[in-house]
């Protein structure tokens, strides 16, 4: 999919910014896990805070705070809002 041109990786989102998930470039169990947590295309996500080392990062998804590794968040493509 040619989404890379118009979207950014979730991992580059600044604190306080809101975005919408466009696609998940993940496979297997991790993809399943992310989807199970409610992070499906179209879901709004807000970056809440970063851990002292900058990784992992906490995101607000459907009223729940979820921490993601930057490695995994970089595979989630989003549209900034």
């Amino acid at each position, binding site marked *: 999919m040619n989404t890379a041109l118009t979207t950014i990786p979730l991992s580059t989102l600044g604190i306080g910014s809101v975005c919408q998930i466009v696609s998940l470039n993940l496979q297997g169990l991790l993809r*399943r896990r992310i989807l*199970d947590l*409610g992070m499906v295309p179209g879901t709004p996500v807000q970056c809440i805070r970063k851990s002292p080392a900058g990784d992992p990062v906490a995101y607000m998804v*459907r*009223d729940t705070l979820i921490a993601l590794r930057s490695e995994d968040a970089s595979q989630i493509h989003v549209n900034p809002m």
Partner: protein
Amino acid sequence: MSNSTIEEHQNFLSEHFGITTTPGQFTVALAGNPNVGKSTVFNALTGLHQHTGNWPGKTVDNAQGSFTYLDRSFLMIDLPGTYSILAHTVEEQVARDFICFGKPDATLVVLDATCLERNLNLALQVMEITPKIIVCVNLIDEAEKKNIKIDISALQKDLGVPVVATAARNGKGLGTLRQKLYEMSTGLCTPAPRQINYSSEVENAIQQLLPKVSRLIGSNLNPRWVALRLLDGDQAFINSISQYLDFDLHPTRLQEVAV
């Protein structure tokens, strides 16, 4: 069920899940996402008739409690709180294996009324395994406070299974819940859960697998669901099948069927 098969099932539950039932007692599995008030529902229904332990061989809590309704005894098993039952973690595996192989007379899925969308994922996953499911929309009082209105009868119609709104903390809706559990366990209620249709590619693959899967597992499990897990390449599930169903067939036979 005849007496001998009841006894067999009792032994099976005790051996694999550490669950001791009395003759004629119904088993009810309690599933739900974390923090939806699942344990509040459990406590409200079973009161002080509880005991806790571990799942055999796992460091996961296993809480059991009993209650009586209309002279029938129910044993309720509180499964670990999970977002999914597609087995990534030990907790999910425990929940999945019990719903799948423990064959509870009813499975109660507790949902958070304030976050229905994400919670319904689990309900749909359980509905793919068993039709004997009751959906409990808990924290309905919290939802009202947040001005969230839930059309329970529409939800029930859409899902094809009984849906009960509760505020377990205040005891609201628990009477209806007991009644629905009774109707489901005794077979008074015949649910028709909505089945998820996948893309035509997946559906074709399922149709190809179904006859072979049905032949292998008989009526032990829902063949459509097993076919889906084989397509997923879920190795943990294939291991569970051989563990619980005592297959004389080697699990690789199942995989061969899938290829």
